[in-house]
């Protein structure tokens, strides 16, 4: 996809002429900003980017990108993107979606796009709420949450988006935070570089309907203790003073341990982003007992869907030659009348 003759692009090349219409203070701005920063670095001509979204606040994203874009139907972006990417493998196709769009109405398309390993970059803006419809609970809202549609609290249990992705055979799954510019930047790049379906959950603040949903992870005071950054090949250490870590108990259950007092880094789990079972184990870690893992949970490589489809077509052409319509029409039970 990279094109050496491409002119050097900058962030502003990726801003469309449309006014951005999210609420002031919405976390979506930070993500837009970061995406517009990363794209020029990728060496892809601007016209080869396509952003496809569903419906929701986050799904307005394509309007603000000066690329090809498609603001489609609630929940259906992964399906539409699958068609586009399969028909046009040379394009860089990004899906922008929300927790409702991707995990409520669109859950099925998401898991199938991941299963097929279509080379899509899927950015899920998780604000744990329905923003556009003004504040109902979403499939990632915590149990007991009081919202417009759950005045005495949600009776549901939430999905964990990373776990869903792992259950659906994703080849790449990562998590980042809207306002964590550097980490988000790195994760977006990793997602782009991964050949295959890249699923990125972005923890995003909806300051109007669910303000502070991720506060512990974004407030300076609590951030270091509230999150643990996954790094391939490194032990799972976290905390302001990097004095805590994650160990596996003999019953194969994760536990937080303080380093020192006989516990050293070598007792900790060494992260391996190619081990799906480890990724799933980490996805189970939840506050307040555990820090929230961010970074790349899983990155394994396998041929992509569109690649395998293209190979089948190429092989058919190779074997049968370029199809001849007249010959095709004349196949089967035929006869001539004179």
């Amino acid at each position, binding site marked *: 996809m990279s094109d050496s003759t491409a002119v050097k692009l900058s962030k502003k090349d990726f801003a*469309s002429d*449309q006014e951005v219409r999210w609420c002031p203070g919405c976390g979506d701005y930070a993500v837009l900003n970061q995406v517009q920063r990363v794209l020029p670095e990728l060496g892809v*001509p*601007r*016209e*080869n980017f*396509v952003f*496809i979204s569903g*419906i929701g606040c986050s799904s307005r994203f*394509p*309007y603000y*990108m*000066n*690329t*090809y*874009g*498609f*603001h*489609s*139907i609630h929940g*259906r972006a992964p*399906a*539409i*993107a*699958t*068609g*586009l*990417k*399969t*028909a*046009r493998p*040379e*394009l860089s196709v990004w899906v922008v979606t929300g927790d409702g769009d991707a995990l409520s109405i669109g859950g*099925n*398309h998401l898991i*199938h796009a991941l299963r097929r390993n279509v080379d899509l970059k899927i950015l899920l803006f998780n604000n744990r709420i329905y923003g556009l419809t003004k504040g109902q609970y979403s499939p990632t809202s915590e149990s007991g949450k009081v919202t417009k549609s759950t005045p005495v609290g949600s009776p549901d249990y939430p999905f964990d988006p990373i776990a869903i992705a792992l259950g659906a055979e994703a080849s790449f799954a990562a998590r980042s935070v809207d306002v964590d510019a550097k980490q988000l930047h790195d994760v977006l790049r990793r997602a782009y570089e991964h050949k295959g379906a890249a699923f990125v959950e972005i923890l995003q603040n909806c300051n109007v309907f669910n303000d502070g949903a991720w506060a512990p992870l974004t407030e300076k005071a609590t951030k270091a203790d509230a999150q643990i950054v996954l790094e391939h090949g490194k032990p799972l250490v976290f905390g302001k003073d990097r004095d805590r870590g994650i160990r596996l108990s003999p019953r194969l259950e994760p536990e937080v341990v303080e380093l020192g007092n006989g516990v050293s880094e070598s007792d900790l789990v060494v992260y391996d982003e190619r081990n799906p079972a480890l990724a799933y184990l980490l996805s189970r870690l939840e506050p307040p007992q555990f820090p929230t893992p961010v970074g790349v949970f899983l990155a394994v490589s396998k041929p992509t869907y569109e690649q395998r*489809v293209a190979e*089948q*077509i190429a*092989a*058919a*052409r190779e*074997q*049968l*030659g*370029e*199809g001849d*319509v*007249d010959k*095709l*029409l*004349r*196949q*089967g*039970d*035929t*006869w*001539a*009348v*004179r």
Partner: protein
Amino acid sequence: MKMSVAPPGEPQRVKKVEERESVVIRFAGDSGDGMQLTGMQFSTESALAGNDIGTLPDFPAEIRAPAGTLAGVSAFQVNFASQEVFTPGDDVDVLVAMNPAALRANLGDLKSGGILIVNTEAFSEQNLQRAGYANSPLDDGSLDRYQVFPVDVTKLTVNALQDLGLSNREALRCKNFFALGMISWLYHRPIESTEHWIRVKFKKSADLVEANLRALHAGYNFGETTELFAVSYQVKPAPIAPGFYRNITGNNAAALGFVAASRKAGLPLFLGSYPITPASDILHELSSLKHFDVTTFQAEDEIAAAGATLGAAFGGALGITTTSGPGMNLKMETIGLGVMVELPMVIVNIQRAGPSTGMPTKTEQADLLQAMYGRHGESPVPVIAAMTPSDCFYAAFEAARLAILYMTPVILLTDGYLANGTEPWLVPRFADLPDFPVAFRTDPQGFFPYLRDERTLARPWVRPGTPGLEHRIGGLSKEHITGNVSYSPANHEQMIRIRARKVAGIAREIAPTPVGGAPQGDVLVIGWGGTYGAIAAAVKDLVARGKAVGHVHLRYLNPLPADLPDILSRFRKILVPELNLGQLVRVLRAEYLVDAVGMNKIQGRPFKVSELVTRVQRLIEA
């Protein structure tokens, strides 16, 4: 396999030969008895014998219902004649019943005095009971109205294969070829095509080739040698336009039509589909045509199938999505988006008997109003329908052409009867089909996503990847010309009216409507879709009897042809036969304020010619 008419080697006939103008045969047996295959092969033989033909497969919804039960009966009907054939035939002249259940389920359609061939071996106590017979109909005199030919097909087949060392089960599986051989003898069919088919089909096992060939020949020879048959029948070749023919089902024809269209447009073809009876065969067919730059995507559901198709269309492919009624509901939201973003795609609905799951393997025409009005908001799309199995080719081609030319989703309606029915098709030359090469917009100068072609009102089609034309589309109301999101009241109305005008303008693509039968007079019969053959035959029959009856068969349901009001005005009465409770008739009444009356049948079965004739006659007399 290519061969020409009048195959060599027609054996010397010693018995009496009578001539017939047309014959309708129905093969009926258990699902496992291979009746579909037998019927197909017999059809091919008949086509090769120079007859015109029409066929009707009829199989159960269960994959394999318990052997011997009514639910498990599978049948295939062939009409072959020395004149033009329009339908698979109303009542049958010959019924081949491989077991009691097949007899019971099909006897009602056998003409009085008709030929009934039964496989006696299958009339065991147990099978009779399974079919709900207290006594064997072979013994109780209940078949006296028919010419009954009891043949122990099972035993004769097993005997013929005795020395081959096949298992009993394998041997029994050949009995349909025995029956086919026997009937082929009875009607002077050339069996070479079947021999050829057997050789290809079983090429992996020389034993099975031998066994099936032997069964076929044994059946053929049995006809000649047994005392049972005193007479055999000849049906002369029909006066058929010269040319190259093939037998084709509607689904097969539709698939080929799309391939041809994609080539004429110069685009790759993308099919997004989710399997469903009776539409799946289009997916199967296209999945084997990858060398025609065809991509088939078996989606997770119909929504994804439609969505992926629209995505591929956004990418510049010819996007097709196929389904049947239940799946059609699920595509509506995506079609509505297609209407708003004005991208081409074809949605094919192979209608089946509803509502809900209904009778999945039976035919019906009850999805017309859904095609027209099934989406929320004002979202008109062109709707066209195929009339015969081979016409599915042209209808598919035309649907694709209109979609691209007018940048709009187009709905193509066929039905289970067309999809699985076959007819001989005078194969066209690719070069003779109209070209419609697509010119994607590439020039950034003066580009706006919703700047329209003056004549067609189509907006430009731009492939992502084109430098300088980056733009965004979506389901929110769009500003005229710029395509920006707009909540302007006046713009909303303007855009909705433009889209309506765009679809209405397609009327200019419609050739003058051909009127069959009388050009004016008492009754105009207006049909659409798969009822073509039955109506054409009925009108021909009525005209032959001196009635002033005309026939219009609509390919374009939306928009309607511009010359229709004029044609309507030339007849005293309008009859609209449909396999539903009255859908086109509502459209015509609303559109033209004519007192068109419906004729409605909703039994999962096509009209009989005789039903139509009777109804029209009553109307003339009323």
